[in-house]
């Protein structure tokens, strides 16, 4: 999408804050891989473990974002993807989800929020996938017994990389020190960290605006 007029900052728009959810939600922001790691490599690794794997990481560390980034590569590898994101308290998979997913050729089930499932649902799902020769890729906050595909963690370098990507097309008065401070406060919880930077951007922009208005109103 291109914006044909440069009213940024003057008028409300999605470009006003680079940390707004439209830019940071899973799928909007590509997963930032550390040096030496790529989506293609992870797909090869997953294939080597018979398409079983888990993505482990704390809250807001980018597990869903990594899943979104891997999806086109998994599809290109010939897998039929069936995805579900489990909400808090959702202890069972929807009726017929597994049956319909296993009906396709070379299925790969992706369960985001696997730890929400009861232990019985997990055992059943694993058994049905094994029986149906289907792959199973899950995300979880802690290791749960599947081969570890990737452990998400947001170190400071990754956070700086993310912020740099976000502010490449939409500028921000947020400084490097702000990023360091947010990381110190929120650690690897990228979700909270980006929301904190959102608030920081708003505060700095409002302060800049107030200063500009005061300067404009001051007598010459």
């Amino acid at each position, binding site marked *: *999408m*291109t*914006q*044909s*007029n440069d*009213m940024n900052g*003057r*008028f*409300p*728009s*999605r470009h*006003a*804050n680079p940390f*707004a*959810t*439209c830019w940071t939600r899973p799928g909007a922001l590509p997963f930032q891989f550390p040096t030496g790691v790529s989506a293609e490599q992870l797909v090869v690794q997953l294939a080597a473990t018979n398409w079983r794997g888990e993505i482990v990481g704390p809250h807001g560390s980018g597990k869903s974002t990594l899943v979104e980034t891997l999806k086109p590569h998994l599809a290109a590898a010939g897998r039929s993807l069936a995805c579900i994101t489990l909400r808090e308290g959702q202890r069972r998979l929807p009726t017929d989800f597994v049956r319909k997913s296993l009906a396709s050729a070379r299925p790969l089930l992706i369960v985001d929020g696997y730890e929400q499932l009861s232990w019985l649902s997990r055992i059943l799902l694993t058994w049905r996938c094994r029986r149906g020769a289907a792959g199973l890729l899950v995300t979880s906050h802690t290791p749960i017994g599947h081969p570890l595909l990737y452990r998400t963690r947001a170190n400071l370098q990754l956070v700086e990389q993310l912020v740099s990507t976000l502010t490449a097309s939409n500028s921000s008065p947020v400084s490097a020190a702000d990023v360091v401070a947010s990381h110190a406060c929120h650690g690897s919880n990228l979700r909270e960290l980006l*929301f904190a930077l*959102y*608030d920081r951007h*708003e*505060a700095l922009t*409002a*302060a800049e*605006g*107030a200063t500009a208005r005061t300067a404009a109103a001051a007598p010459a």
Partner: protein
Amino acid sequence: MIEAPPITLKLDSAAGEYQPGQRLSGHFMAEGAVPWMVRSAELSILWYTAGKGDEDFAVHHFERFVDEPGRPLDLRLPHRFATALPASPLSYDGRIVKVCWCARLRIYPQQGPETLTEAVFRLGDVSAAPAEA
């Protein structure tokens, strides 16, 4: 594959500021002399939200321009649009909720992916939310 030419989407008011009930008008066109074959173009005047929440949006005005055998759609010529703006919602630069107005042009070429161009404007005189209340 023919590359999409630069698109101009311009509002007649240079300031881009409007009041509820006021007439908003403008034009769009494709730059360049080379003819660009398009199937259709859609012009919407809409509002959307931005900030910390999921995006909401609603279309206030919608026009579709179609390439027809008797009436070819030549975007090298300016195509005008106009509408009366509603009384709400007003543009709002809030802290976690922003209400944004724009004209959005979506072009479907005969070949290649669709293009999307926006021109933002302000509706009303609502002040930006303060940093802390």
